[in-house]
């Protein structure tokens, strides 16, 4: 209802790479990146799916180092949004 499920959805799995996991700063980085795009962004872990543009949601996943996240993006600029998210994970949130 609050999330729609389109046919063409980009989907990718990520492993949380940094020691502190998705804490306030790293979650904010992801959320700010996702918020720059018009596409819908969802993060899920252990069956709980949250809105990737909401810092509360992403933090509430309580994703520690090494945990697996599934990220789904759909919308007009989905490829660019996924790239931006990928970049943040590649850079390990500029930590460690």
């Amino acid at each position: 209802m609050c999330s729609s499920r389109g046919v063409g959805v980009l989907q990718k799995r990520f492993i949380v790479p940094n020691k502190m996991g998705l804490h306030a700063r790293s979650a904010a980085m992801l959320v700010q990146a996702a918020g720059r795009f018009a596409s819908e962004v969802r993060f899920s872990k252990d069956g709980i799916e949250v809105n990737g543009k909401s810092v509360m949601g992403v933090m509430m996943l309580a994703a520690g180092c090494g945990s697996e996240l599934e990220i789904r993006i759909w919308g007009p600029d989905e490829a660019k949004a996924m790239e931006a998210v990928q970049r943040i994970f590649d850079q390990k949130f500029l930590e460690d």
Partner: protein
Amino acid sequence: MVLTVGEFVQAQGQYLHLKLLAGGGGLKRRISAMEVNRPGLALMGHLERFRAERIQVIGRGEESFLRKLNHGAGGQIFRKIFGFRRLPCFVVTSNLAPSRLLLDFCERHKVPLFQSALETEEFVGELHSYLESRLAPFRYFHGVLVEVYGLGVLICGKSGVGKSECALELLKRGHFFIGDDLIKIKRLPGEILIGEAAREDFGSYMEVRGLGVINVASLFGIGSVMDSTRIELVVTFEIWQGPRVKSNYERVGLTERTKKILGAAVPHVTFPVFPGRNLAILLEVASLNQRLKNKGVYSAIEFEKKILEKTAGAKK
């Protein structure tokens, strides 16, 4: 929705006065059914349609029957009963002492056997209400959950549309906050939807853009937060696209719109959002209007009726 016998005992053991007597090796067994089973017929040897997946409750009747059963016949029946792999556990109520045979079979087949101090009637009632809520189907939703004039309202809409700001204004006006962002909704029998913060262990936090994370209970007082509420209205906020974009907003209110959540229909109102609109007062009125409707008062229909009376009179 996975519940093991171990988790069940940890959660309810004290409340239901449960004592583990045998079969402690089977605490990882799963409880998948909300109902309980009184295995009277099974103990008589009738195992057709035996509901093995349910918690098996042995009360005074079953117990006195078991006591009369001789060891050979009892063993034969128990071998059949314990052949069902999905048995979660047995409970003897009223502090009854279970027969040696039952203790042995439970221990050998690693099926937990508990003794409860409660009488059967009370035990079954309490157990059922616990399982009903614990095994209820649920889903997570992105939104804000508030209670406005006694009605649980789920506020939906895209990120940044103003859900949290609206909740703040509602808090200021004395309404209640349940959760922000990630809401867990359970469906109970009778199309009842119960919403709660998905991570209540984290407390009542909310994010306000520009301010960051705030603690609602500390800022507005413990009296302004609630753990859960029954959802009776869904309100969706949508950015208004201007008058030229074809939209479908309700103008008269003759049609009742609903949203399906977990198969249950909930009244649904959509508000276009634009700068300067007081979303909190809209939500208050929507909630009051819904309460009127729940009492059978439909303002739009009343108004339409008056118009129709007038127009019919004009023809003559």
